[in-house]
């Protein structure tokens, strides 16, 4: 809640100055303009613009190395930008970083839990460092442990937590002070489906209570479920923005996927598919993919035509566009190819296949 802002004593002249300011309640709005960040030759951010209205969720979607974490780090005052400026919850990140910190919660890409403290101690410490006071910090810690199904593990050292438990503890840490603005960097990476749904529910609840959330993800499905607005990033720039539906329309609706048994069947299969699809079918490993409109009708038609041509269809499916499709159509490269400078491959996204046959 906004009214749970930690009260911090300031010199009298600052108090005078902030008196006029405090009459306007904190607005959890995020505005970034032309953010630039360079690391040597690498341009991590290349003039990024972002707007997140209060009480909405913005999903930053992009492949490895596209600059998502860099953007979050600048907005959370962990690093300074080389250009552009940003205002978070009414405070300028460069000019007034400590004020920004009072108004945000961050759950970074790598879970930052203290292994030598228990789950409870981790959260209680964060609460006290937000200056909630000792008792409220304890109560809040217990509450959050309950909320993230960590009550049983509350008094065990975080050293013994599983990856998913650490992730949840870290997320709980971001919520300790109930800040008006939350930054979640790949919050569901490494979570099992149940924990992921739990997290999604938490984000929904936060938004219901008027919080502003900026989250990064590599999964279209996640952005789809959570975000009001999605910004697709590539090479430190915004290459598209819109709701999930708008983005999907942009890349041409559903995808039809058909696999054939033999190499020499591909040309015929491609010809049939091309007749039904919106774009030229792509082929990889005897699997043909093309975007279609009205997939439910096109799929049986394609199957019938292939059957008539005596092709051996081994697999068939209809799926929604993935991040890869959005990428391919926006940049002409696959998301994987866009992330070439990364040594460790991120967990690949399995396409959501709706089996029909």
């Amino acid at each position, binding site marked *: 809640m906004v009214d749970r802002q930690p009260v*911090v004593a300031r*010199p009298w002249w600052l108090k005078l100055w902030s008196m006029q300011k405090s009459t306007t309640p904190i607005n959890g709005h995020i505005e970034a303009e032309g953010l630039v960040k360079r690391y040597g030759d690498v341009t991590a951010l290349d003039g990024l613009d972002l707007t997140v209205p209060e009480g909405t969720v913005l999903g930053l979607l992009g492949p490895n190395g596209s600059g998502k*974490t860099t953007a979050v780090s600048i907005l959370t005052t*962990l690093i300074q930008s080389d250009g552009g400026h940003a205002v978070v919850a009414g405070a300028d990140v460069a000019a007034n970083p400590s004020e920004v910190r009072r108004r945000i919660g961050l759950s970074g890409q790598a879970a*930052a839990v*203290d292994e030598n403290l228990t789950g409870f*101690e981790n959260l209680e410490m964060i609460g006290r460092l937000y200056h909630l006071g000792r008792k409220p910090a304890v109560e809040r810690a217990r509450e959050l442990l309950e909320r993230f199904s960590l009550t049983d593990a509350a008094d065990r*050292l975080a050293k013994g937590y599983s990856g998913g438990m650490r992730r949840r503890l870290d997320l709980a840490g971001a919520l300790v002070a109930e800040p008006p603005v939350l930054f979640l960097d790949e919050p569901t990476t490494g979570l099992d489906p149940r924990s992921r749904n739990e997290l999604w529910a938490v984000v929904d609840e936060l938004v219901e209570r008027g919080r502003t959330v900026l989250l990064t993800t590599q999964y279209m499905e996640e952005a789809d479920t959570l975000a009001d607005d999605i910004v697709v990033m590539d090479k430190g720039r915004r290459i598209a923005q819109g709701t999930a539906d708008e983005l999907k329309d942009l890349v041409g609706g559903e995808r039809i996927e058909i696999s054939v048994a033999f190499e020499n069947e591909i040309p015929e299969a491609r010809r049939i598919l091309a007749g039904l699809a919106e774009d030229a079918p792509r082929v990889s490993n005897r699997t043909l993919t093309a975007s279609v409109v009205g997939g439910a009708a096109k799929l049986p038609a394609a199957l019938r035509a292939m059957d008539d041509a005596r092709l051996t269809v081994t697999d068939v499916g209809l799926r929604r566009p993935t991040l890869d499709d959005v990428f391919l159509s926006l940049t002409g490269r696959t998301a994987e190819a866009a992330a070439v400078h990364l040594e460790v491959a991120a967990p690949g996204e399995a396409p959501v296949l709706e089996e029909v046959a």
Partner: protein
Amino acid sequence: MGRLTLALGDGVIVAQRNMRKITRQPELLVAVLIMPLVFVFLFSYVFGSAIEIEGGSYREFLIGGAFVMMLTFGSTFTGIGLADDIQKGIIDRFRSLPMSRGAVVFGRTASDVIYNVLSTIVMAGAGYLVGWRINNGFGSALLGFGLVLLFAYAFSWIMAYLGLKVRSVEAINNAGSLVIFPLTFVANTFVPTDGFPSALRTFAEWNPVSTVAHAARVQFGNIPETTPDPTAWPLENAALYSLGWVAAILAVFVPLSIRAFQQTATSN
């Protein structure tokens, strides 16, 4: 609540967190307690058999130096602790919180004093076993311990700065040894400097490790009456000169470390 109270409060929270760690990382604690034992016994029997101190005993001479050496080495824990926190992302978490800027490094240097106090107690006990005695009264000896601990505290700010800059536990271990070995050995720590080649001797005389060790020996009453008074200015004014170093180190490395802390972001 004023600004200072706030900063102090944050520092205390961080120090408490580090202290919990002491008991939960027993390996580190064991190292802290065993190292001084090994040192005192090794040096007093190995070197002690070969080195003569005119009019006194080598073991009495040794302990003052061993204290300084041990506690200066102990300051690497500060750098290691910070580098470890950076690697685990804890520093990023701290930096995203509305806490006082210096609290993390202040809390860290403060809680690491505990290691050095434990080290001191163990070493004093071991020293007693090999024949070291306090000959100048307890109060004076406490001043001696205080000076060594203070010097080690100041030194831990240098290590804090290094830890925040190099960000790796292994690197800080190596960097620490690289600085601390020459500093503690080219000094009067283990042997009197009379026999050093003149350049080394001058370095040793102006080396704060020597002056801290000398001042401590004076406080413990470990300087034989027959030993002539030192002629080098730093040793003549050992306590004052040492305190000057403490002040200088803190004046430089407290602001440097706090700035380094603010600029630290875990690279991914």
